[in-house]
């Protein structure tokens, strides 16, 4: 059984490192982990949940603001939601989402409709991809704990 735990731990370590290396996460995510302890054992999962809820809400706002059928597009309204999403993605270490928001913001300021629509599609895909990846990571953690092991601390260089 110990070989099983060791294998899971290695899987977890490799997976976590790959998320950083592929640019999904940055060191702010590491900071979130520092805030998790016995008193707040699910802190990271809880914050990420709030973040993903934020994504749904804000992307909805952006889509509505970019809907030409309701009249002229209000780019400042789009920009306001992008600014908020940029903020929360930065707070949780969602590096790719944040990067997209930077580009998106520029298109808003330039009032570039096609650019905005493209960014909207990309940011939607990106947050969903991250959500799946993190779910896989949390599942590995759960498996380790259920097997009686301890989730290793992963040091990112």
């Amino acid at each position, binding site marked *: 059984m110990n070989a099983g735990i060791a294998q899971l731990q290695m899987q977890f370590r490799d997976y976590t490192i790959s998320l950083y290396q592929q640019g999904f996460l940055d060191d702010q995510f590491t900071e979130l982990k*520092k805030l998790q302890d016995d008193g707040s054992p699910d802190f990271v999962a809880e914050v990420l949940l709030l973040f993903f809820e934020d994504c749904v809400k804000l992307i909805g706002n952006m889509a509505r603001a970019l809907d030409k059928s309701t009249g002229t597009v209000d780019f400042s309204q789009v920009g306001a939601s992008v600014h908020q999403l940029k*903020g929360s993605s930065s707070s949780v270490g969602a590096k790719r989402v944040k990067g997209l928001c930077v580009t998106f913001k520029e298109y808003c300021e330039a009032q570039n409709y096609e650019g905005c629509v493209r960014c909207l599609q990309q940011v939607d895909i990106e947050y969903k991809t991250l959500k799946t990846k993190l779910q896989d990571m949390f599942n590995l953690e759960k498996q380790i704990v259920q097997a009686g092991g301890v989730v290793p601390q992963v040091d990112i260089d």
Partner: protein
Amino acid sequence: MGMAAESQFHVLAVDDSLCDRKLIERLLQKSSCQVTTVESGSKALEFLGLRQGLQSNDPNELSTSPHIHQEVEVNLIITDYCMPGMTGYDLLKKVKESSAFKNIPVVIMSSENVPARISRCLEEGAEEFFLKPVRLADLNKLKPHMMKTKLKNQKLEEIEEASKDETALVEPEIKDSTKIEILPLQQDLQLVQQEEQTLCTNNKRKSMEEGISTDRALTRFDGITTTV
């Protein structure tokens, strides 16, 4: 009534983002603070106003119980800059303009590094300006404020003890200290708690707190301005 020296440093955190509120709350808890979070500047003022003794007819407006009879003091306000309606800057101004709350240190957080914004806030009386995302290391800058409050609480306790004992020990010591205009903070915490004579010989120049006055009972502290 006694100001318990063990009561935690209470921070009022203001941010319109739920995500960020959760984060700042955990950061502050991890730094051993008691935290109340609100989502806007107006809710923050409401909370402050009610906590200073005014009665509210609408308990639903509060995020915490309205029926606390003893004052729950706010020791520090930390607020986001960019918020709809009242910005963090507006809140800062309102706090500094009010006679009741102007001594509460205010810290501003922002996701944007705009030097003009930072200087404006510091000029208006903000103690610190933190760039988001705020980290545990940033909160170490708040330790001096926590020490000041702890010291204040301890001194108040001592004064109360002294008056109970009916000795004049504390009073004459405090009168002497009015000669001293400036005191270093952290190095001399020990000194302030001991004999006041030692303070008279202290010539250090860093400008921090004034000497202790019986009348004002440690309610006034000059803020420490830090450069960003």
